[in-house]
């Protein structure tokens, strides 16, 4: 199986939140980055499929130079090679909407298919931990004319394609059968993520990372239509509190005593 995994580099979960001077994103100074959680699970599924059925795992990621670190991490875990859609400035992709980013991914996947043959599966996480749009995979499927399924926990290869387990709401699940090639967005948590081994980290340094700039990709891609953004992020702000929180201070014992008093006499729940 030839599997492409689209991964995104996002700020660490506990990154300090300060709004930048333009008021459109957080100040990225001193922010550490990591592989988006559900994308890490998508990579894990891809690596397990490759181990079971052979083939190749190609990692695809868009972003500035810093994204290279996350790509190397994926290669160290066992991906075979990578494509980096390199933005020249830190904020170059910030002006793109989800459709614009998916168009870039679609263009590079089409290029990959034209050069190196059929892709069987395209996997990505169900949503990013930073923007949380939860759409890139589905839009990508539509742009590539492929069937898709979202919130996938398990993938099995069948004669005709694949059988997947999809998570529904309220503890319900569903199996789906899809022909390949197909696009799947992967839900977090179903398998244990592997760590990169020392050997893996060593090998990763020798693996191929093909870097293409956003502008070159756009210029070279005849088939993909690139459109101007239709949805624009105007500004960000810190959320206003929905409730007034009374912070109960003091030592743990003092805070606990205060809370019990509130629960007894104000909430009347004890």
């Amino acid at each position, binding site marked *: 199986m030839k599997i492409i995994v689209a991964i995104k580099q996002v700020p660490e*979960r506990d990154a300090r*939140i300060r709004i930048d001077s333009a008021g459109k994103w957080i100040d990225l100074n001193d922010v550490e980055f990591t592989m988006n959680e559900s994308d890490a699970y998508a990579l894990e599924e891809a690596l397990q499929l490759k181990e079971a059925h052979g083939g190749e795992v190609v990692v695809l990621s868009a972003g500035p130079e810093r994204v290279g670190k996350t790509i190397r991490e994926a290669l160290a875990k066992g991906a075979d090679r990578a494509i980096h859609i390199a933005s020249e400035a830190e904020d170059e992709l910030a002006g793109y909407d989800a*459709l614009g980013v998916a168009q870039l991914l679609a263009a590079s996947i089409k290029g990959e298919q034209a050069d190196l043959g059929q892709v069987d599966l395209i996997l990505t996480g*169900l949503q990013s*931990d*930073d923007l*949380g*749009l*939860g*759409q890139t995979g*589905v*839009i990508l*499927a*539509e742009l590539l004319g492929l*069937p*898709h*399924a*979202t*919130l996938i926990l398990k993938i099995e290869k069948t004669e005709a394609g694949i059988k997947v387990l999809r*998570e*529904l*709401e309220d*503890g*319900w*699940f*569903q*199996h*789906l*059968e*899809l*022909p390949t090639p197909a696009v799947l967005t992967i*839900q*977090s948590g*179903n398998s244990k993520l592997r760590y990169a081994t020392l050997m893996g980290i060593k090998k990763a340094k020798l693996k191929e990372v093909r870097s293409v700039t956003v502008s070159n990709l756009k210029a070279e891609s005849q088939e993909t239509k690139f459109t101007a*953004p*239709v*949805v*624009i*992020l105007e500004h*960000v*702000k*810190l*959320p206003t*509190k*929905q*409730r*007034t*929180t009374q*912070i*109960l*201070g003091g030592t*743990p*014992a003092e*805070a*606990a*005593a205060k*809370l*019990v008093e509130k629960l007894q006499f104000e*909430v009347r*729940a004890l």
Partner: protein
Amino acid sequence: MSSVLVFLEIKNREGANAEVSRISWEAMAAGHALAESVGLPVDLALVAAPGNPIFEHLHGKRPRKVYAIDDPLLHAYTADGYAAACDQLIEHVNPSHVVFPHTYQVRDFAPALATRFGQVLISDVTGIEGGPEPVFVRQLLQGKLNATYRHTGTGPCFLSVQAGAFRADAAQSEETTLEPFLPKLEAAQIRVQPGEPFRASAQTVDLGSAQILVSVGRGIKEEANIAIVQELATALGAELAASRPICDAGWLPMERQVGSSGQTVAPKVYMAIGISGAIQHLVGMKGSQCIVAINKDENAPIFEVADYGIVGDLFEIVPALTAAVRKAKG
């Protein structure tokens, strides 16, 4: 442009207790607010045969029209079927805005639908700032940041609204027009074969009926540490609940999971211990009467919805709290 078009979703489609989901009525309320600010009527759409009794139980302000989208190929949900059918209805109605509830099903097909119109779904909207050119608020970075989005495209604006973000309107009794809409679909368009939905295991815990829930998250660090939270729950006479990572790790069963992929609860007291409060968790519990948060990070989003908070090390606070509860209860 003729209207604001709201898509409703049916829960338990196969069962006798099929009903329009609560989040759909909230989406409809958002649709009405939006329609008022742009000066257009509201139309509703629902995948169901026109004779379905569900149409007798429409809530909220009356829409101008209700479209019953009906075709045998839509009896089981598929993204291909729903996207194709909705595509045709949108072409027919020519709405200014298309509003969805932000459900797993909508997340599965609406982004593809929007793509067909060269548009992008503004997903998981928590607020609408009205006016002739409304802007939409959604959360970033797991709820730590709010962002305002504007639609600048020339086609319809697609949005989905977060559960609990809009208050569903009370039922009104005026008449509305029910109009069947029969899309042209072919079996070959449906590329995915869906299986019957199923439950992994029989539910044995009913979090919904508990007065007090003590809920544990990533901050607990290790499976063995859950015992201290269990002790607190026992002392309080509470049920134990958890956020997703705890159930994913297998430390507590899935049926104790609160959030968009687990249960939605609204107990008298919800105590969140070591839970940062990602949106997916908040939508499952923010309706609770009293929310208590214990977390080491004073900037954790859980404190935005909490009534009482203790900032500090849960490994010190939880045992102290258990002792204090025992003492109070004598």
